[in-house]
């Protein structure tokens, strides 16, 4: 399948088509997004929650940035740890990992506390040096807690069990870099992913925070009434180009019966590249939400 959006060519190879998805070494199986959104699952509303709000209200067009697309083979995208954080974690934990306490915890403290060197230095700075075995007992416990929380979720945090071990291996050193741990910059890695997988990660890690997988389709006139359209409605309610523009820049639509133009309540995810937004659309088309 070949789709052209604003000059961006997205090629989806047969191996990423439904039914043909196979577990390959280094590649995770792509599966449809399912179930209620994170905020619905938690009984929250977008008015009462900071979750998913790292996107901004419509910035002036000149400020909409387009990150340089990473080099990759046709039908794939190369993702660094920073990219995995951006598409999986940033919508809630914000660009710097600080989150929105108390609803969304900062990731910085726990990441620092999982480092033997950081904890050793901290104990020394407190005038309470501790032996290595004791420090390791503490940090290994914190690392295990972090990995468990990522896979199983927590109080407000959804499970990110859809991330593969290979992806977590790439993401994890970036968290160290965000937390300012020495030497982390030299440990950054990347992973090459099929575009459908990238789309899956974006949809599951960002869109699904607020949008249910399925549900009654709502016309654009209900955009101001508090209805968040389901992900299943995207491919046939929006063209490829409209979807990408809506995600990255925001698009005014006639809302309500008066026909007033509004860009609705969705934040603008101008930190997603055109290719990434396109990958999300393709994924929703090829793997219909269930």
């Amino acid at each position, binding site marked *: 399948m070949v789709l052209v959006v604003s000059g961006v060519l997205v090629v989806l190879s047969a191996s990423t088509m439904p039914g043909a998805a196979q577990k390959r070494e280094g590649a995770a199986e792509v599966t449809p997004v399912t179930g209620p959104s994170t905020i619905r699952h938690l009984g929250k509303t977008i008015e009462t929650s900071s979750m998913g709000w790292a996107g901004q209200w419509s910035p002036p067009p000149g400020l909409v940035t387009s990150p340089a697309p990473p080099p990759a083979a046709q039908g794939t995208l190369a993702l660094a740890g920073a990219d995995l954080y951006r598409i999986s974690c940033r919508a809630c934990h914000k660009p710097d990992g600080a989150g929105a306490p*108390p609803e969304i915890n900062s990731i910085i403290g726990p990441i620092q506390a999982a480092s033997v060197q950081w904890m050793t230095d901290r104990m020394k700075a*407190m005038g309470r040096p*501790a032996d290595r075995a004791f420090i390791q007992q503490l940090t290994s416990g914190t690392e295990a807690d972090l990995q468990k929380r990522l896979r199983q979720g927590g109080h407000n945090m959804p499970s990110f069990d859809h991330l593969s071990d290979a992806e977590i291996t790439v993401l994890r050193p970036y968290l160290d870099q965000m937390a300012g741990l020495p030497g982390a910059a030299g440990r950054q890695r990347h992973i090459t992913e099929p575009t459908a997988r990238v789309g899956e990660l974006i949809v599951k890690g960002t869109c699904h925070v607020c949008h249910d997988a399925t549900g009654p389709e709502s016309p654009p006139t209900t955009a101001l009434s508090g209805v968040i359209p389901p992900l299943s409605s995207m491919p046939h309610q929006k063209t490829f180009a409209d979807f990408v523009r809506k995600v990255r820049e925001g698009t005014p639509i006639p809302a309500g019966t008066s026909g007033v133009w509004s860009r609705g309540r969705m934040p603008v995810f101008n930190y997603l590249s055109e290719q990434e937004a396109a990958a999300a659309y393709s994924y929703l088309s090829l793997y219909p939400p269930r």
Partner: protein
Amino acid sequence: MKLVVALLSSVGLAIASADGGGRIEGTVKATGLPSSADAVVYVQQVPGKFPAPAKPAEMDQRSMQFIPHVLPIVVGTTVRFLNSDPTQHNVFSPDHEKYNLGTWPQGQTKDHVFGTCAKAPCTYVQLCRIHPEMEAYIVVLQNPFFAVTTSDGKYKIDNVPPGAYSLGVWHPKQKAQPKPVTVDASKPAAVDFVLAK
């Protein structure tokens, strides 16, 4: 000092009846700090043995903070650590015999007995291995004649057996030398401290 009153009245200690003791009171001034709270004023040594209270002392983990920030206890006291946050917490201390109590979820508690203290005060910093911004102190003392200052620096220790003592002060960041105090049941003894780095 409710704890002390409850302890003394419930176990009926012979050495200091609730009405036979005296009061020590005063003000502790922390230099250059916005608050003079969290200083522990304590009688360094009182003859006799002081059993730990039957009821555990409590330290809560709430809104990513240990509450209270400073908790003085008599040696042998059990401290019950409660997690009130919707996230896992841990408690550990690198001090003295050091301990790591593991993690537990909201609503659950874990007990730890502070059974020894060779030379009071024995201070244990309380840390959470998951949330490094959290910090508190447990100060283990020889006897129950202690108080923690309020934000204006005031303290009051009641029911102290009459006698001559050395009055110590402990603060997480600042210090001051102990001062002599003579306790008389007929009138309160006034002792002020000025803390500095």
